[in-house]
């Protein structure tokens, strides 16, 4: 059992609050991604879990044991550093073998583990080279292999695929997922890349400004963002936010009246995923003034305005809409997010 419980962790650097009461539970064998903009505290949280940084307050339990004050090597985890930290004076083989050597594993096991990890990350050709001649992406894979080779109970990865080209990243992502699932490794994975987070994770924790904004299954976070920040951060194109006037507890979407959560009075913000619309006659639907139409092959991307507010929506590739046209849109009523214009928080969120 190697579950992780993070209980009200705070971290301040001088007067700067890098983490503001983070609580998070990661189940045994679960894969949780930390997703968030630069500087929101992802690396700091990971370093605290690893024991490389001391929390200002709060508690961390790994496998039920409090690890506060425990040295990193006694926490039974492996880590991939954001800047790789591949040892320059050791060959790639010795780098990957490092953790096993420290555990005094016998030569046969070292060899087989290193070969296995190297094969997985396609770094066999470089095993007897020194890292300083490798490219950033190759070094990064050495760092991942070094962490996988020890078969840790808990694996912390700080943007481990950020330097790979798109194709290789996709491939590595799939293989990583397969391997970690098979070994049942509890994983916390930091990334900027939301498609990566969506594809890999059992759950995603969206962080913002030293806080966890929302945690949940990828689909939940995508379709039911808890706040304007999460909706705008997840998805490509990001969620559209449209301010609409409220009359008698309803808003007018084209010629339809739609009931909204009762707590708002004059105005409400509609959170609309670009793909939750379909074409409707202009007279019936919500009016979109198309400024740019981009046929993307798999879909048609329209940029324009609804009620004078910028939006991006997606239609099936077969539709023919031209720039400058005005069209009607029918919205998928059960997939709409309603947010408070003042706080930016979702009003009908299932968690509330």
């Amino acid at each position, binding site marked *: 059992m190697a579950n992780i419980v993070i209980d009200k962790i705070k971290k301040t650097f001088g007067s700067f609050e890098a983490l503001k009461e983070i609580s998070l539970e990661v189940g045994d064998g679960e894969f949780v991604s930390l997703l968030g903009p630069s500087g929101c505290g992802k690396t700091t949280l990971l370093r605290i879990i690893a024991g490389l940084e001391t929390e200002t307050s709060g508690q961390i339990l790994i496998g039920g044991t409090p690890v506060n004050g425990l040295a990193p090597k006694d926490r039974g*985890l492996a880590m991939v550093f954001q800047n790789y930290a591949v040892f*320059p004076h050791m060959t790639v083989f010795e780098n990957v073998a490092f953790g096993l050597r420290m555990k005094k594993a016998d030569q046969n096991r070292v060899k087989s583990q290193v070969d296995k990890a190297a094969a997985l990350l396609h770094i066999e050709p470089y095993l007897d080279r020194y890292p*300083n001649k490798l490219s950033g992406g190759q070094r990064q894979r050495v760092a991942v292999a*070094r962490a996988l080779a020890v078969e840790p109970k808990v694996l912390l990865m700080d943007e481990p695929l950020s330097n790979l080209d798109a194709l290789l990243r996709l491939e590595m992502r799939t293989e990583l997922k397969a391997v970690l699932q098979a070994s049942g490794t509890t994983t916390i994975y930091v990334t900027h890349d939301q498609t990566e987070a969506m594809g890999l994770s059992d759950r995603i924790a969206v962080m913002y400004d030293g806080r966890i904004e929302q945690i949940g299954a990828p689909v939940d976070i995508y379709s039911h963002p808890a706040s304007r920040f999460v909706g705008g951060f997840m998805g490509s194109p990001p969620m559209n936010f449209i301010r609409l006037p409220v009359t008698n507890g309803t808003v007018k979407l084209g010629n339809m009246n739609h009931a909204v959560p009762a707590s708002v009075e004059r105005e409400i913000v509609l959170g609309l995923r670009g793909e939750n619309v379909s074409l409707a006659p202009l007279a019936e639907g919500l009016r979109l003034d198309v400024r740019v139409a981009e046929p993307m092959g798999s879909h048609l991307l329209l940029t324009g305005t609804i009620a004078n507010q910028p939006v991006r929506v997606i239609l099936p590739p077969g539709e023919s809409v031209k720039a400058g046209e005005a069209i009607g849109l029918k919205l998928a009523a059960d997939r709409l997010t309603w947010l408070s214009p003042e706080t930016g928080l979702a009003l009908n969120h299932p968690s509330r």
Partner: protein
Amino acid sequence: MQNIKKTWIPYLLIAPSVIFLALLFLLPLIQTIWLAVSEGGAPSLANLRTMAGDLNFRLAIRNTFLLALAVVPVQIVIALAMGSMVAKVDGGRETILWVWTIPLGISDLAAGLLWLSILQNSGYLNSLLFSFGLIERQANWLSYQTPIALFFAIAVAEIWRGTAIVMVIIVAGLNQVPKEFREAAEVFGAGPWTRFFRITLPLIKPALQSALILRTVLAFEVFAVVYALGGTNMPVLVGEAYTWQNQNQNYGVAAAYAVLIMVISLAATLVYLKAVRVDPERLP
């Protein structure tokens, strides 16, 4: 016109330093070598023979090498320890480094005299030992009858005086090693000693090499501290050169000593360059 100007400018700028070095270093060097291997204007090994036949010659060589052997490793170890300790300090780091480098600002003769005031018969050490009742009367540490105490005193003074420069070089080297390397080693199970010997030490090899070369060359040139503490009780190579130059007025033999010291220093440098080889491929 423009181009001619451009190609000449660098040489013009370098010229003063080249001329300066040639006049004040290269020329005297050639003169010294010639002085050592000539007699009355003709090539001759007479000076070298006089030097090798001198009573103090073997003693001076032995003492100089023993001193270097005793002082340099201790200095490297102390400097490594100091450097590693100060790396862990957050507040007041600059102040500690400043205090530690004070001996650097003191000339070696002054340092020798400073230690003389501690170690001479009426010095602080004897007063202290006497006041604790550890000795009956003033002990003599620095005479030719107590060669081991004298050697020890000189070694301590040299270590005190010359460790700071080693530390400065090593601290600079340590600063070049990103903390993530040590952290990664720590996460993967390396204890403090393993981290030091398997990660930190290999990564500061270039700094270590510079420090070793510098300190060893300086150790072979040891003189002022020896002279201040022991006078002629403990002959060393530079001391012999000094004696032949000033007391015996034999510039040829003095030059022979100077050349010998230079050859030993160059040899030591070569040994270090080979032994502590820095492979550029294995640097960060």
